[in-house]
């Protein structure tokens, strides 16, 4: 930054107080980001800090509600991704979207193929140009091969080649290294540095601090949709960066009342699902709330789904009160006393077009059908007290769940599982997308349930929620448990460090489907 004084060359990208809201939800409160040419700029922040929204505004996916947006010193306003591309903005996503059946060259020149005599596509020129691009990037990819079967790393290279052939002056890479092995990361960094040296500006989004410090010259921190700070990486430390990312006092927000902690109820040993999570072991005891923290995509929900039997796993064991629970069978997990409140309540938690009564009675109905027959009346009578206990707001029990607010829907899901009288409650994102009032109701309820001896495993992307509610925090990173912290040791910094803990694994490459 310092070597490019203001005024001489305008910044490639300049965002000032950019705001973007989706209905009542403000995703980006005041996004500020200034990126200079010949610079690699890191953008960091927790999940939900607004990084992706900011990138989408720059890419023309979303239109900003307010604020300044300048490209090369000129104010712009993109209505589509085509407009941003034409102005030299290229975005490379974590998982590139190529046409698998077309050749890599055809992917690069999609929609703007060079034309020869008689307006026919000049294939020879196209392949020659692709060859030239790959040579410049220092990679060996056959321009004629189909995109199908390329590793994620090579797919990203194709996207970068596309960006260069468009002569993009600004390249934004959204967590490009998440699925790459160590060698592939090095190659990507070499390419990024050479692009920087050509005078382009790069924005690099990553949760891995070692990479941020290895590659970038400047770092901007965001939190809760707001700009926090910008520093030269040479002048800051990992600890300062984490403090800026977390930056709030959380202790008293979500009070968990202390409960007597009893014997182990849920015991998970060496749970492994190849390529998803690896050797996951933990115990949840009666009366205990265990928080499962980690970044999006780290494998938190996947572990929960496998423990409950919604997904299968390759090896490992799950015990409830000492009894083994067979894998891959939700029914068996329910019989063993487990309940799973999944992360996506509209798709997984509820049959959204079925009535409140049908949803609340959804799991207990086999117990209601004692004679083998089940009537709507029995179901309604069984569902009503549970809906009432959770104060579900509805006119009648035959209204569909789709007509209710997110908070009420979540109450229906909770009612449905509490009705089964579980011993273990796994709750994935308990308060995502619900209003503040219901949120604290849910927190109070979880605390009360733990007080009555329930073993609770709580997954949450909201660090304050995890730290406030959990007796113990497990941190998962790239499918492995990297920390097991007691309440007193679970500081935001300790959790974030463990969550971004990164072991290069040379085998993790994925192919295009």
């Amino acid at each position, binding site marked *: 930054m310092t070597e490019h004084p203001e005024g001489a060359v305008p910044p490639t990208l300049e965002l000032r107080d950019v705001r973007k809201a989706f209905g009542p939800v403000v995703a980006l409160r005041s996004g500020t980001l200034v990126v200079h040419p010949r610079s690699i700029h890191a953008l960091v922040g927790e999940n939900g800090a607004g990084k992706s929204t900011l990138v989408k505004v720059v890419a023309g996916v979303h239109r900003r509600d307010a604020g300044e947006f300048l490209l090369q010193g000129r104010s712009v306003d993109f209505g589509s991704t085509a407009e941003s591309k034409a102005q030299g903005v290229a975005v490379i996503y974590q998982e590139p979207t190529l046409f698998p059946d077309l050749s890599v060259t055809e992917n690069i020149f999609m929609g703007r193929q060079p034309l020869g005599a008689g307006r026919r596509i000049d294939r020879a020129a196209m392949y020659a140009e692709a060859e030239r691009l790959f040579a410049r990037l220092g990679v060996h990819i056959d321009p004629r091969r189909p995109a199908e079967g390329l590793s994620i790393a090579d797919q990203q290279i194709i996207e970068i080649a596309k960006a260069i052939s468009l002569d993009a002056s600004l390249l934004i890479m959204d967590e490009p290294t998440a699925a790459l092995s160590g060698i592939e990361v090095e190659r990507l960094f070499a390419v990024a540095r050479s692009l920087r040296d050509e005078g382009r500006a790069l924005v690099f989004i990553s949760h891995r601090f070692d990479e941020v410090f290895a590659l970038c010259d400047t770092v901007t921190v965001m939190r809760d949709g707001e700009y926090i700070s910008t520093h030269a990486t040479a002048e800051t430390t990992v600890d300062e960066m984490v403090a800026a990312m977390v930056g709030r006092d959380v202790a008293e927000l979500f009070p968990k009342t202390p409960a007597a902690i009893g014997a182990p109820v849920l015991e998970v040993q060496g749970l492994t699902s190849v390529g998803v999570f690896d050797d996951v072991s933990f115990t949840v005891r009666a009366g205990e709330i265990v928080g499962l923290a980690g970044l999006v995509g780290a494998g938190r929900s996947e572990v929960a789904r496998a423990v409950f039997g919604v997904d299968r796993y390759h090896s490992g064991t799950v015990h409830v009160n000492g009894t083994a629970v067979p894998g891959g069978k939700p029914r068996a997990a329910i019989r063993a006393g487990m309940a799973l409140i999944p992360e996506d309540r509209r798709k997984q938690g509820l049959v959204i077009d079925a009535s409140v009564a049908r949803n609340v009675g959804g799991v207990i109905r086999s117990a209601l059908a004692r004679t083998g027959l089940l009537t709507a009346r029995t179901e309604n009578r069984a569902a009503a007290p549970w809906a*009432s206990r959770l104060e579900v707001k509805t006119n009648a029990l035959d209204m569909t769940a789709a007509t209710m607010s997110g908070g009420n829907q979540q109450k229906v899901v909770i009612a449905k599982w509490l009705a089964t009288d579980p011993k273990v409650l796994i709750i994935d994102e308990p308060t995502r997308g619900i209003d503040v009032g219901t949120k604290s109701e849910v927190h109070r309820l979880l605390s009360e349930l733990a007080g009555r001896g329930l073993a609770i495993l709580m997954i949450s992307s909201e660090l304050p929620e995890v730290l406030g509610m959990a007796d113990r925090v497990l941190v998962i990173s790239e499918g492995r448990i990297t920390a097991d912290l007691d309440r007193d040791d679970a500081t935001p910094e300790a959790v974030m460090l463990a969550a971004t803990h990164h072991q290069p694994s040379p085998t993790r490459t994925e192919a295009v489907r």
Partner: protein
Amino acid sequence: MSTTGRVYAEYSQPLWKRLLMTREAAVIALTLAVIAYSLVNVQNFDGPLTLKFLLQDIAPILLIALPMTLIIVTGEIDLSVASIVGLSSVVLGVLHQGGMPVPLAGLVALVVGAVCGMLNGFLIAYVGLPSLAVTIGTLALFRGVAVGLLGTTAVTEFTERWTDLATGTIGETSIPLVMIPFALLAVAFSLLLHFSTFGRGVYDIGLNSEAAHFTGVDVARTKFVLLTLSGVVSAFAGIYFTLRFGSARGDNATGLELQVIAAVLLGGVSIFGGRGRLHGVLSGVVLIGVIASALRLEGVTVNVTNIIIGLLLIASVVSGGLLAWLSRRLPRQASRASTDPGSTSTRPAARAGV
């Protein structure tokens, strides 16, 4: 979780509305209207043989519509039913020709039907292939085997005792004997769909199979059971079909699957799954049967009958869409409890047929 003792109404609509303002009630009303019209205006419609032939004609459709309803409610389909009718007919004929008594040959035919259904069920439920593709394949496969076994010939030498049973009526009435097993099956299937946990699972799968899986519904097993039942019932319909006409042929009941599916959809079952009730379907079958019978008595050709039934089916689908469109445009009185602006479904579940 302070208990407020909130009390809920069980239903948002009064009983008469829940009974009469439904798709099923509309189909039943239309069926009764067509019957009344035919009794007055169509000559011989009130004759003694009309009811007998009408019921004999629609019996295979009535039978197969029972499992088909449950399959379509889960969001799947079985197009191979008519081919299973043909195959079971040939199995019965060939075995009987070889000297096996009808009851035993019939039993083997039922087993063959079950195996056919299990093949469909295995490919759809456990391999995870789309039912449309699988059953188009087995439609050709089973029919091919049936025609291959018997060629273009027919087996017609059945013991009279059994063909008489298939064409006989209950006592002095005009109601065919086949209505007895049908009635038993209809009761069994309606208990299964509307009064059992299995049936609740069937609706859940049709509305949201992922959520059903998360709730502990065994999605694969449910589909497997339904397709197997479809095979068995189709084979039973094949035995009846064969004995009624005293003729086992490879091409028996060709195209019957479309009549069954048309009746199921006309009866108010959503092709996308999750909605529909058995009494609507049965009345849909009767409606089609009555129209066909009345038009035949009027001397109208089969082609015209098909045109009318086709138009009726399209009209019923359009009217459903039209009603949904209307209810969206009307003031949303049903959604007072709603605070979710993104929701489009404001109908109480009971009216939606869940």
